[in-house]
Every structure is written in structure tokens, then in C-alpha cells.
């Protein structure tokens, strides 16, 4: 099924008699669900774009590339840096903006501006009974009623199928540059990232891989130059500067986890505390890419080490298996939290037909 209007989508869900597998472009789905494929790619187009108010309203099936093109024409962008995970996950297809929201995707700029949820102003979606629901809106500050916008972000199609999403967008900065710090071990390299993040220099990226720590600043040209200088003094070590396109390429690789493309094994996405990050990666002895100052570890391991990962992370965050087979994909939740999540799913999708079993 590939409806082209919200009404048709609602009708399709209401009429469904068997489970549905909700799919944008299928480029970032993780976990298993079965059912008749319901594609959102037919719901496309920009509904409203007001650059002077930093507002974009777009239908959920619109390709991410199209959204980025529209914004770039007015020198704007989505602040949270949408990762392209096709290379990592070995997928093809056209990534949709609805899928980005459903996965609450984020890139390296999460340290500064948060994830998709933090830029999301409003949603329209169809719940499991085929009812169209709206929440939030198109304005930047809105506390009218409960924030289902946040609840839907990251719900991976299990509470409803998104039909329209609105964002607060961001102006493209005039300049960007990255400090590339070599010669430090992982512990010291992550500590350097923390020092930078604890400084007033408004870091928009802090990552580490292949023996190098990367620290990004963006903004007006004079300001970028000033902050680079100050940061260089702060972090010490063997420091080089990458500017403009070179810097952008470095961060595209971090964002898309390019390090693991074409390499075998499981890939885990571990959300943790920066101060625990070197130890966790060290203990599991895989290949690591640290983003968000160490608060996020992308870890490549041999297959079948889920239990060890869970034990290493326990009490210090959580781990999701984004690639590889066997064992649970999402981390278990505390029983009383799982009960609430199950309760919400039962309310929003009483027949249990939307991506059933995907998240637990």
C-alpha cells in the first residue's frame, strides 16, 4: 500500500485486517516486525516554509534530500544533522523525513541542539484505529495540551503513522572549522572533548575515532577563528585545523558512521556518560567511534555479544543493536516503565497492528 493522501492512509489503516509494516524509505528501520507493507512515500511536499520564522511544515513521505534542498535554497538546514545510515545498514532506497522523526534521528550536532525531537514543532499522524490526530503546531513555543510530539518522535511507527511534521530550522552558519587532535589515547582524547564541551566556546561537534579527537565550531567567521584559537590552547596536544568543506566531510563521516561501512560484524549504538565511554569500549574491545563528546559510542563487534554489551553498559546508559542478527535489538526497560509503554501502545494501537513487536 502506498497512499497519497492522509485520508487514504487513514482509510487503509482503519480497513486493515492484518498487521502492517510501516515504511518510509526503509533506510533506517531496525528491529523486526512483519506485516503488509504500508509505505508513506506517497505523502510528499512542503506544506509551508517561512524562512523568516525558521519554520518548515512538510509531509512525512517527503525525501530528506528534497527537504535539505528546499532549505539550502534559503541558506537554512535541519539543525540536528540527519544521518544517512544506508551505508552502515546496507540499505538502498529513499530516506523520508517521516522516518527521520519516527527514529528520532540525530547527528553530531546533538551535543549542541539535541535530536530530531528537539527541532520538532508539530505532528499529524494516524493512529492504529485509523483516526487522524494532530499535536503541537508550527510555532516555536507551544505548551497547549500534552506533548505528543515528543512521544511520537522515536516511536518508530508503533503509536501511529506520521503524515505531516513541522520543524524549527536553522540558518546555515557562515563558517565552520574543526580541530583535529592526534597523539592522545582514548581516555585522554575523550577528556579533551569534555574540556571543550565544558568551555564557553559553543561546540557543535565532539567526536573521536581512529586515534583522533575532533572538535567543531560553527558561526560567523570572526567568531569561529576566535574560538578555534581559544580551544587550541585549552585542549593542547598535536592539533591541526580542518576548515570548510574538509571539516564538513569529516563530520559527514562521523554522522553516517562511515568507519564501519563495508566492515563485518554487529554494530551497537550505546548512549552513556562520557566519563564511562572509554572504559565501556575498552572492556568490549571492539572498534569504536565516539560521538557527542563520548556520550554516544558506535561500537563494532563480532556477532553474539549482546549479553556482554548489556553487562558493560548496565546502570550507565543503554545499548541498541542497529546491525546484526539474533537477540534483542532494543534494550530492556524497567518493568514499571515497560508497563507504561505497553499501556500507551495498547491505547494508540488497540489492535496491535502497527509495527507490532518492533520495540517490545
Amino acid at each position, binding site marked *: 500500500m502506498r497512499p497519497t493522501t492522509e485520508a487514504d492512509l487513514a482509510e487503509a489503516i482503519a480497513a486493515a485486517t492484518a498487521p502492517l509494516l510501516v515504511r518510509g524509505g526503509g533506510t533506517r528501520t531496525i528491529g523486526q516486525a512483519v506485516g503488509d507493507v504500508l509505505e508513506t512515500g506517497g505523502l510528499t511536499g512542503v506544506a509551508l516554509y517561512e524562512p523568516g520564522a525558521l519554520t518548515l511544515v512538510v509531509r512525512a513521505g517527503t525525501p530528506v534530500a528534497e527537504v535539505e534542498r528546499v532549505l539550502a535554497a534559503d541558506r537554512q538546514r535541519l539543525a540536528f544533522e540527519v544521518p544517512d545510515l544506508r551505508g552502515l545498514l546496507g540499505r538502498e532506497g529513499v530516506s523520508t523525513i517521516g522516518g527521520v522523526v519516527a527514529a528520532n534521528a540525530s547527528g553530531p550536532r546533538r551535543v549542541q541542539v539535541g535530536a530530531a525531537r528537539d527541532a520538532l514543532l508539530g505532528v499529524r499522524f494516524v493512529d492504529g484505529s485509523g483516526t487522524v490526530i494532530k*499535536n503541537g503546531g508550527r*510555532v516555536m*513555543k507551544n505548551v497547549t495540551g*500534552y506533548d505528543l510530539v515528543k*512521544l511520537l518522535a*522515536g516511536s518508530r511507527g508503533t503509536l501511529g503513522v506520521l503524515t505531516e511534521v513541522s520543524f524549527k530550522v536553522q540558518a546555515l552558519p557562515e563558517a565552520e572549522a574543526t580541530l583535529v587532535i592526534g597523539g592522545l589515547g582514548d581516555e585522554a582524547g575523550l577528556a579533551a572533548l569534555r574540556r571543550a564541551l565544558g568551555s564557553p566556546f559553543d561546540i557543535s561537534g565532539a567526536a573521536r575515532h581512529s586515534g583522533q579527537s575532533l572538535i567543531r565550531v560553527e558561526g560567523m567567521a570572526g567568531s569561529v577563528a576566535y574560538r578555534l584559537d581559544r580551544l587550541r590552547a585549552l585542549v593542547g596536544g598535536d592539533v591541526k585545523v580542518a576548515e570548510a568543506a574538509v571539516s564538513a566531510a569529516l563530520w559527514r563521516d562521523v554522522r553516517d558512521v562511515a568507519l564501519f561501512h563495508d566492515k563485518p560484524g554487529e554494530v551497537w549504538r550505546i548512549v552513556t556518560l*562520557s566519563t564511562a565511554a572509554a572504559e565501556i569500549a575498552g572492556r568490549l574491545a571492539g572498534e569504536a567511534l565516539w560521538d557527542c563528546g563520548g556520550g554516544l559510542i558506535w561500537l563494532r563487534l563480532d556477532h553474539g555479544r549482546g549479553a556482554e554489551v548489556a553487562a558493560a553498559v548496565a546502570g550507565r546508559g543503554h545499548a541498541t543493536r542497529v546491525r546484526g542478527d539474533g537477540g534483542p535489538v532494543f534494550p530492556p526497560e524497567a518493568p514499571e516503565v515497560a508497563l507504561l509503554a505497553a499501556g500507551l501502545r495498547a491505547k494508540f494501537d488497540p489492535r496491535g497492528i502497527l509495527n507490532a513487536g518492533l520495540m517490545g
Partner: protein
Amino acid sequence: MDMPEPDLGVIARKARIVARMRAALPVDAVIDAPEELRVYECDALTAYRCPPLAAVLPRTTAEVSAVLRIACEEGVPVVPRGSGTSLAGGAMPTADSVILGVARMNAVLETDYDNRFIRVQSGRTNLSVSGAVEAEGFFYAPDPSSQLACAIAGNIAMNSGGAHCLKYGVTTNNLLGVTLVKMDGTVLTLGGPWGEPAGLDLLGVVCGSEGQLGVVTEAWLRILPKPEGARPVLVGFDSNEVAGACVSDIIKAGILPVAIEFMDRPCIRATEAFAKAGYPDCEALLIIEVEGSEAEIAEQLTRIRQIALAHDPVEFREAADEDQAKRIWLGRKSAFGAMGQLGDYMCLDGTIPVSSLPHVLKRIGEMSVQFGLDVGNVFHAGDGNMHPLILFDANKPGDLEKCEAFGAEILKLCVEVGGCLTGEHGVGIEKRDLMSVQFDAADMEAQMRVKDVFDPKWLLNPAKVFPLGVSETRRAG
């Protein structure tokens, strides 16, 4: 303003309910004398009042859990309260309800500068969170104007914003996790210091749920390094349209000030009379604040000056020093107090798309004449969050009703132009009956389902947010 009929059965059982709570809490934690309960009959929205059945002031999560378990068993509604600064009546009780105040829970539990978070008990005031990390050069970003007094608990319940949220976001963008006690007494943790949910973003929906899903007792908050410096400029204009266009041009140019505040003429005049900040007497005034080092501030201000001067302002005033910066902010910060000198006021906070600003201000001016009540506007212009302050005389019969009707028309207008009823104060009881202007039945049903899951008996702050008719069957059940 209608409130549900109190449950007479509960009121009849008051002695027993109070005795059970007394047995579970320290002696000084339960208040039930009528003369002492009056203080808890309203929050900062004094137009609506009703003393509660009792008030309890626990000190720990375990005590909160004990109170809620008893209340749940006895079928007593509970109204959580932080500092009682809500402008929406969020903390206003009903005659059959128990006020659960968290003001005594104000400890700092953990600070971690390496991982940049602080964990506090929820009764701690917003400003004192920043105070606790200031010496290390950090701050907590959301800064409601009430930050001196309001509690993190209330901030989370209302998803409060502040003048600087243009850059730093509102509460939900700075909240990492909470300890939450459900109405049945269950204690749970949502989120954590690492700040990204593993499954559904339950924390995201608890934030802004106005004390209807659970009682927040502890919170992990993100702290940020303080910027090197900050400086405001003041720009006066002869027309609202031009001021609006200037805001839009600044944003389009890719400059991100931390705050853009807007005041209209009535508000400028009131603050001048009260605070004497030396503002120009003009139609519209912008205060724009930028942050960074000296050089960075200069770089941004040069750009802002270029843009502003192109709009032919009546005044462009830069702050040469700290003292002048304070004076620029003085009037804005005194605006509420100043309007309060002119009479009682009702403060609305609808949000509009920034492009509708001139139209909306013009319509508000017309309505002001029509209703015969004065109104002044202060406005977070960067994000379209308005604060019309309608002046009335609370001691004059009929004036409050007139004011309410005027307020409702303004909020309907906000929704009509693509905005919303409330940008940061919450729905509470004040905007409850207007919810159906913004949402249709299915939209509200979806929200109420969330409450069904967290609080199936609908005992937590039940008379708020949803129009009474809409929530009736659930509250009865």
C-alpha cells in the same frame, strides 16, 4: 470558571484521610486547619480560588509515594504544587483535593561537571539550580521571568520557557530525566543523565503534562558553560510592522541572538512610569541580546545594527558597559510589576507565527477599545510568544468576566493565525475551556489516553487542561 462538584464522600471522610496521612508523614507535614489552608487556595492566578481539603509537605520521594498511595486508596484527588507561581491556575485545588507541595524538597543531589548535569529534588527553585553550579562557570539555561521563585517541579509540569529560549530551548530541551511517582505510589525513573530515551520518550510527554501524569520528585538537568559575556541593544520603532520586519530580517540573516524581546507603547509607558529605565516613547521597542566574547559580540552587533538601521528606527542604543546593559533590561524586567501598578492584570501567553505580529497587535488594539479594557504587550518576539497583559479591576463587579471574554478573543485570534493558546504558562484552568478552539475531539482524546495509562482513576490534578465536559466520563470513572 466552573470547577467540578467536589466529592462530598471524600469531604465527609476528611478526618480519616488526614489521620492516615499524619500517620505516614512527620508531624509538621500535614496541614488541615481551615484558616491555614486558605494560603493554598490559589497560585499566581488569583482570580480563581478554592481551599483544599488538606495540604501535605513531604520531604522525600518515599513520603510522596506514601501520600499518593493513601490518596489513591481513598479516592482523593491530588494537586501537586511547586512554588505556586503558575499563571494558569495549574496548582489551584478543589475542595475535595489534597495539595501536595514539594517546596521542602530542595536539595542538590549530585553535580557532575564532566558529564554536564545536575540532579536536584524538584522543589528547588530554578535560579538556585544555576546558583549551585555558578562557581564552576555553569548555568541552567531555561530562565522564566519567575525564575527566582518558581520550582523545577513547576517548570517541568508546564514545560516553562524564558527569554533566552530562542537559543537554548525550553525546559523539555534541557531535561534529561526524572524520578516520578505515579498516583498509585509507584516510583519510577524516566530518562537519566545520558539524556536519550531507550524506548518511547515518556519523559517527553511527562514534561508539560501539568502535574496530571505523576509527581516529579527529582530531576536530572543539563547544565551549560556560561558564555563569556552578553550584551543587549535597544531599538525603538515607530510602527509594529517595521519592528516585526526587523526581527524577521535578523533571523533570516542567520544571526541567532539569545533573546529578542518586544514591548508595545502601552507597556513602554507603564514601565517608564514605574521603573524609569529611560526608554524612548515609541510604538514598538526591541531588546536584542547577543552572547560571546567581546569580539564576537561586536561582530554580531555590527550585523544587527546594519539590519536595524535599514529599517529606520527612532532609536538604536547600545550598552557601553554593564550598567547601561542593566538599564536596557530594567524596563523589560519590571514590565509585570509596572503593569500591576495600573491595576489587576491577566497575563495571556498565546504564540503566533512571527509574520502575523503586526496583524495580531492591530486586532488586539481594536478589541481593547471594544471591550473597554487597556492592554499592554510584552513579547518574546524571536519565537512569537506573546504576553498581552489585560488590565481590569478585580474589585469591580463584572470586570473579571469582561477581561476573561477579551482574553478568550485574543487566544482565539492566536489560533486562527496559526498559533496556539499557550506558549509557556500552560493550560491549567485558565485556558481549559478554550482547548476545543485549537484541538478537535480526536486530538484531545489522544492526549487523555496518555493520562488513562498513567493515572487510570484520573485523580491527579483532574480538573485541569481538558474542558470539563470532555473529561467528565473519565473523571467520574
